[in-house]
């Protein structure tokens, strides 16, 4: 049966009227849906923010390979090209000995003692190097093996024991630990989000179901008076939409101070990256997610809950 305009209008009218006449129950339902999507919102913002932090940490990891002062620049550049062709490598930066010296001078500008010692040495004490970033931290092992075993071994600088000067070897332990820590925290973050989301859904559904359970006698009377299923169900779905919309506004209002507080407490921890700023600059997307989650939660819960009472 296609729904005619007059029926649709009546369903809207009764949905709104029931929402207001149900007062306390409506408020409680909005509150519970708010809590649910608050969790969903916090999880969404938190996990995107966390993964942003993880990426920026990964960004900070790199390895450098140092070359003998005798190594011809052309060979170093050809090694750079070969490295760039590797699938594990994301970026390679060449730093010549002169650039290294310049950077050193800039870093220690004003520190006369150090600058003077450079004068004493006379020649440029720095070697040229390649700074290599991998696609992810677990790839550094392969890259460093390529450097050691490859045909460029002769131009790589080595220490007195013959160990090639590749920073990965020196930082291997830290990089490996970091890489496993990051992938674990991604997985845990995902699992926690999933569990929280499921709990949120179940709590919201139970509340809506309880409210509709309270209307079960009304529902059966409506059926006996000759109301179609759509006509009975409709106002409950409209109420669900209203619950969802109000809950999403309410949640946004709750999230704002929550992230402000968290941001204030944790910006030091994350090296100045502030979760509150992330929240504010993405507020429209976040509201949209909350709105969709809230309305879906309200409507679907009502739809599923009412099915069992539309029996006679």
């Amino acid at each position, binding site marked *: 049966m296609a729904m005619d305009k007059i*029926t649709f209008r009546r369903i809207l009218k009764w949905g709104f*009227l029931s929402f207001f006449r149900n007062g306390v129950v409506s408020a409680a339902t909005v509150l519970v849906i708010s809590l649910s999507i608050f969790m969903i919102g916090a999880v969404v913002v938190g996990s995107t923010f966390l993964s942003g932090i993880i990426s920026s940490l990964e960004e900070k990891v790199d390895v450098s390979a140092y070359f003998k002062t005798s190594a011809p620049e052309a060979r170093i550049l050809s090694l750079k090209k070969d490295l760039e062709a590797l699938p594990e490598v994301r970026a390679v930066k060449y730093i010549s000995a002169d650039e290294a010296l310049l950077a050193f001078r800039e870093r220690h500008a004003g520190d006369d003692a150090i600058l003077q010692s450079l004068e004493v040495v006379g020649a440029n004490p720095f070697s040229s190097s390649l700074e290599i970033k991998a696609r992810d931290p677990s790839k550094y092992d392969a890259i460093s093996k390529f450097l050691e075993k490859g045909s460029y071994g002769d131009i790589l600088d080595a220490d007195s024991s013959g160990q090639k000067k590749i920073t990965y070897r020196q930082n291997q332990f830290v990089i490996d630990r970091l890489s496993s820590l990051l992938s674990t925290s991604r997985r845990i973050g995902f699992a926690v989000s999933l569990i929280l989301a499921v709990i949120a859904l179940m709590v919201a559904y139970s509340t809506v179901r309880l409210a509709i359970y309270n209307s079960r006698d009304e529902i059966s009377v409506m059926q*006996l*008076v*000759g*109301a*179609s299923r759509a006509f009975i169900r409709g106002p409950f779905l409209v109420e669900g939409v209203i619950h969802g919309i109000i809950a999403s506004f309410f949640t946004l209002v709750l999230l704002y101070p929550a992230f402000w507080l968290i941001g204030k407490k944790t910006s030091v921890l994350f090296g100045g990256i502030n979760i509150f700023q992330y929240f504010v600059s993405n507020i429209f997307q976040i509201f949209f997610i909350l709105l969709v989650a809230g309305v879906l939660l309200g409507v679907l819960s009502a739809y599923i809950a009412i099915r069992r009472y539309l029996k006679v």
Partner: protein
Amino acid sequence: MIYFDKVSKVYSPTSIALEDVSFTIAPNEFISIVGQSGAGKSTLLKLLLVEDWPTSGKVFFESNDVHAIPKEDLPLIRRRMGVVFQDYRLLPQKTAYENVAFALEAGGKEDDDIKHDVPQVLELVGLMDKAWHFPHELSGGEKQRVAIARAIVSRPDVVIADEPTGNLDPLNTLEIIRLLEKVNDLGTMVILATHDKEIINSLKRRVVTLEKGRLVRDEQRGRYVL
């Protein structure tokens, strides 16, 4: 016309609500179903309303076997039956006016018709002055009059009343029965389930008596005999 054809309803071996009940009700008839508590009166009416299904036998509303009607078409047949219950069963969140109007809205009636018909019916049951009261603001007798207004507003072929006076004092009882008689005088079939002796004896209409689920008496101008 309504026809019960060898209807049995067995809830469990120890609870046989109806056993092989057959009888016919003509349009315009005012019929009372009487019997002691547990005799099967409500069960009979529930089967007619398709609130429940018979174990065997059939219930016909005109030429339709009501239990063979597809679910989505049930509202259509229910709009031709008005129901009144002992416990009123008004919609608690709706005013008297809205409760009556609901039956018409559910049937897809135009707004103008609803605005015309509802006050008329509320006037008939004498409740126009309390039209905007919610059920909890009405007395039992007033609630039952709203329920009757709701049952008759869509001009059904039959009004089914299951102990409509069960919770009312004698004066309100009399008033409700008068209303049902009026409805019947206007040409609507009325089926009244009751175990109120006074009512039956004052009605002097057809009486069908059930005893432990069996039809034991069917008399025109019947009296209450148990």
